[in-house]
C-alpha cells in the first residue's frame, strides 16, 4: 500500500493500490490502468499532472467527493481491424486514479486542461482561515 503525503497536509494520502509497475502504467483491474501522476505545490495552489495518453477531453472526468479527487479517462481500443501483431509491450485501456486532497484545497475552484495526452489540474489553496474582514455598520 502506498501512502504518499501528496498535498503536504494531514490526511492527504494516495488512496490508490500499489501493484507491479509496468513501463507506463499499473493495471488495477481488467482493462483499467493506474496512470502516472505528479503533484507540485506552489505558494497559492497545487498542480496535479496525470498521464492519460489516448483519451480525449470529453472522455475525462475529474470529480471531488468528500475530499477525494477521482480522475477517470475512457480510452477507446485503437487496434480494431489492425493486421498481424508483431509486438505488444503495453496495454491499452481506461485510466482511473484517486487521491485524497488536503484540507487547504479550495475544492470549488479546481480547473483542468488536457494537452498532449496529459491532464493538468490546478487546485487553488483556500485563503487563510480567519482572514475575513467583518463589515462594520455605522450611524
Amino acid at each position, binding site marked *: 500500500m502506498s501512502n*504518499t*503525503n*501528496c*498535498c*503536504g497536509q494531514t490526511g492527504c494520502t*494516495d488512496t490508490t493500490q500499489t501493484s507491479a509497475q*509496468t*513501463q*507506463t502504467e499499473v493495471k488495477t483491474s481488467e482493462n483499467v490502468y493506474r496512470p*502516472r*501522476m*505528479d*503533484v*507540485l*505545490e*506552489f*505558494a497559492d495552489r*497545487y*498542480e496535479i*499532472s496525470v*498521464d*492519460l*495518453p*489516448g*483519451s*480525449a477531453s470529453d472522455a475525462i472526468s475529474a470529480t471531488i467527493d468528500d475530499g477525494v479527487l477521482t480522475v477517470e479517462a475512457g480510452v477507446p*481500443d*485503437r*487496434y480494431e481491424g*489492425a*493486421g*498481424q*501483431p*508483431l*509486438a*505488444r*509491450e*503495453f496495454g*491499452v485501456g481506461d485510466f482511473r486514479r484517486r487521491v485524497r486532497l488536503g484540507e487547504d484545497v479550495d475544492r470549488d475552484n479546481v480547473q483542468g486542461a*488536457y494537452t*498532449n*495526452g*496529459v491532464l493538468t489540474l490546478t487546485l487553488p489553496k483556500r485563503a487563510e482561515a480567519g482572514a475575513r474582514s467583518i463589515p462594520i455598520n455605522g450611524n
Partner: protein
Amino acid sequence: MLSTLFRDPTFERLTRDFNSLVSQRSASRVPALNAWHDDEFLFLEAELPGYSQDDIEVLVQNDTVTLRGTRSHSIPEGAKALHVERSGERFERTLRLPVELDSEKTQAELTNGVLRIRLAKAESVRPKRVPISGGNALPGN
C-alpha cells in the same frame, strides 16, 4: 484485441540489441512499443504523453527506424515537488525491422500523446499476386 507479445523472433532479438546500446549511452527512457503489420505497411505505436510534435523525431533508413525526443520537464520556479512519477526529458529507441522499408512513404501522427508510425514496406517485399494460366490439360499431356 491483439494477442500478446513477440511472434517474430528476429524482431525480438534485434530490438533487444539496439535498446541495450541506447540505454547504456545515456539516461534516455526506452518507450514501450506496440507493433503490427499487414501486406503493405508496418505500424509502430508508442505512448508519449507530455511531448509535442516538435519534440519528437522519427528517422527511417533502409530497415531501421529510430524514434527519439526531448522536452523540458523541470520543476518550475517556486514549486515544490510533492510526488513525482512522470520524470524524464528524453527518450530514444532504434529498431531494426525484419523487412525493408520505403522511407519516402512513412507517415507519423501524434494524437493525445500517442505516436503512431506507419511504415511502408518496400515494393519488392510486398506479396505479389501470381497470375494463374487456365486450361484443363496439364502440360505434357
